[in-house]
């Protein structure tokens, strides 16, 4: 409840007509409903709202409520057999706009050892992704145009969705909630099962509701107080850590991470075989009967082929008929090769150790040999020069980044980004990925007197290994100056990210404008991760603009300290 009003928007959640805003009349109406039950089975008020009944019993010491039999609720409870809870964080898969910030859900662990038999509490916006354009998605998301609803699903179904179909690595943070606390949470979730709330990306989103549940489980924790203006799913995990409710962490590799691991394990002669099999370029027998291929390599080829096959089918690259026949033939051949080595995907850097979302920065340096100072603030979330520790490689998502400079008694805007995003996806044997980036906001790359508004969206390719990755991008753009100028830019970049404590970013850009102006832009930065939330950056910027025979140049060298919280 915030300012006396409930955050639930569905009238079915309340007994009193003014229940959303008037807690007193809702309490009276609830007591009436529980004392004067009209039905005594699943449709009774007590069965629909078990948490309230328990709460009233405790707080008001009421023992004479009407007895009702809640078959559905009891069956569900028996099936779930709640013992403990886990905060699940499917990390970002930045190629899809709907997952840039990641996602969180709560898993209710049963008495079984296998976590696949647990149930996931899911709260999601009802988005018809194929029919919703990026623009509509953003607008509706910000204004509460989507409706959110809860579901209780077997955890394996969620894994199919996030780990397999969307190829997101899944992080599981076991919470130290007691059995009793989990039960309390579950009763509340049961009450909300059929209600709807308006869904806002940044405030009342999936993660916000998860925080609610955790606070209901244990009122002494105050997770929601960690958030003022927005909630990024990963931030909820950070908050859970600060409240000391995280006990242990488990990692589940996405289909993508599994395929990348097979790329490592397959020898050079065999690396193309899984794809060849799936794309029917070779016969299965040519692998199985080939005596020159080592047995373990054969197993890897077939296993990777199965993974790639499922990936291709999920991406609609083949018919169901073809998929089923290949799947069956390859599994059959694989079974005949006996038990092999288990795939061991190394656990990546824990997102819990990544930098926080809000960044403030201060810096100093020289521009064209004159001293200059910098101050900046950015509410969210990550750019390519921030430490990528715990983040998806090559991903960037920035929201409302503001950087100011001070030189010769003048304060000016260096950068004011509304939104910028990038996804530099490395191409490899199994992934024909393309990369993209986009930005809207003000910057000084056009080298005018002031920052100019730029809007750009470009695409390209990226390749990499464990040491570093490179990218080639073509970026059409326009600047709004006195008039609109358009340009096409071409960039080549290198990012060395092998070491967790530092990274190096280099980028060279050439731009051709419709005004016959041409530009060179070069930037190089050396970034040190001093601690989880502190970064020291040295950056060199060079800009040059040619028009007819005149050349304008600008050079900036600076040291910047970034602090994240």
């Amino acid at each position: 409840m915030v300012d006396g009003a409930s955050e639930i928007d569905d009238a079915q959640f309340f007994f009193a007509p003014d229940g959303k805003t008037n807690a007193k009349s809702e309490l009276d109406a609830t007591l009436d409903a529980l004392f004067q039950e009209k039905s005594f089975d699943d449709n009774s008020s007590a069965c629909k709202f078990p948490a309230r009944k328990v709460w009233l019993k405790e707080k008001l010491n009421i023992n004479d409520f009407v007895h009702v039999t809640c078959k559905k609720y009891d069956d569900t409870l028996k099936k779930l057999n709640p013992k403990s809870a886990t905060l699940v964080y499917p990390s970002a898969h930045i190629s899809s706009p709907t997952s840039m910030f990641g996602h969180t859900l709560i898993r209710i662990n049963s008495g079984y050892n296998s976590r696949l038999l647990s149930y996931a509490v899911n709260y999601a916006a009802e988005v018809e992704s194929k029919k919703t354009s990026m623009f509509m998605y953003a607008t509706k998301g910000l204004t509460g145009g989507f409706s959110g609803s809860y579901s209780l699903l077997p955890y394996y179904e969620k894994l199919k969705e996030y780990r397999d179909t969307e190829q997101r690595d899944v992080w599981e943070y076991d919470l130290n909630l007691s059995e009793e606390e989990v039960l309390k949470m579950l009763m509340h979730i049961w009450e909300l099962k059929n209600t709807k709330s308006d869904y806002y990306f940044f405030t009342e989103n999936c993660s916000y509701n998860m925080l609610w549940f955790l606070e209901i489980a244990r009122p002494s924790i105050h997770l929601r107080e960690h958030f003022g203006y927005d909630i990024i799913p990963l931030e909820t995990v950070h908050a859970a850590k600060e409240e000391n409710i995280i006990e242990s962490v488990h990692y589940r590799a996405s289909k993508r991470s599994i395929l990348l691991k097979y790329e490592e394990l397959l020898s050079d002669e065999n690396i193309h075989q899984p794809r060849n099999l799936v794309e029917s370029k070779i016969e299965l027998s040519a692998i199985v009967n080939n005596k020159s291929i080592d047995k373990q390599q054969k197993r890897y080829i077939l296993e990777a082929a199965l993974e790639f096959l499922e990936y291709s089918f999920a991406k609609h690259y083949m018919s169901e008929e073809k998929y089923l026949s290949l799947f069956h033939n390859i599994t059959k051949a694989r079974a005949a090769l006996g038990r092999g080595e288990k795939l061991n995907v190394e656990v990546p850097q824990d997102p819990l150790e990544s930098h926080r979302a809000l960044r403030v920065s201060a810096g100093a340096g020289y521009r064209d040999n004159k001293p200059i100072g910098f101050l900046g603030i950015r509410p969210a979330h990550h750019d390519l020069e921030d430490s990528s520790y715990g983040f998806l490689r090559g991903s960037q998502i920035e929201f409302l980044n503001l950087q100011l400079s001070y030189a010769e008694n003048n304060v000016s805007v260096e950068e004011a980004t509304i939104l910028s995003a990038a996804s530099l996806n490395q191409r490899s044997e199994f992934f024909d990925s393309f990369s993209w980036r986009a930005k809207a906001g003000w910057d000084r790359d056009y080298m005018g007197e002031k920052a100019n508004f730029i809007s750009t969206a470009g695409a390209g390719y990226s390749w990499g290994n464990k040491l570093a990755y490179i990218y080639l991008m073509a970026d059409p753009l326009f600047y709004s100056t006195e008039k609109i100028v358009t340009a096409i830019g071409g960039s080549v970049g290198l990012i060395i990210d092998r070491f967790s404590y530092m990274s190096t970013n280099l980028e060279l850009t050439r731009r051709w404008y419709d005004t016959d102006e041409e530009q060179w832009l070069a930037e190089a930065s050396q970034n040190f991760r001093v601690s989880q939330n502190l970064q020291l950056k040295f950056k060199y910027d060079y800009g040059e603009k040619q028009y007819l025979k005149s050349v304008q140049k600008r050079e900036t060298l600076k040291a910047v300290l970034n602090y994240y919280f």
Partner: protein
Amino acid sequence: MYKSNKEMVLMKKILVSALALMALSTLAMSDINNQLRSKKSNSIMNERAKEFVASNMPILEKEIAMGHGESIDTLAELLNIENVALFSASLQANYNRIYMTQNGTIADVLNSISATSM
């Protein structure tokens, strides 16, 4: 061949489970294909195991082919099988029986692997 009676009993249990799984995969899929619910209850496969198998067919098939995996471990737990390694190995060894034979409904299961299974 077997060191003790105990192992013999375990082996039997596993083979029976493998056969049950075979029967079940047929049931589960014919359920989906015919939109019918089988009323036959199986003494070995409890409801929970049935539901799990029916919802995890492709991943189970893949894991059985590989001889290990979390879904197999889960199934073993649902069936109260203690020796999971032996269970996995036995499922893998019986792959052809589980996914190929029977009266053609398995062909439906995997939705038309016409050439091999008919």
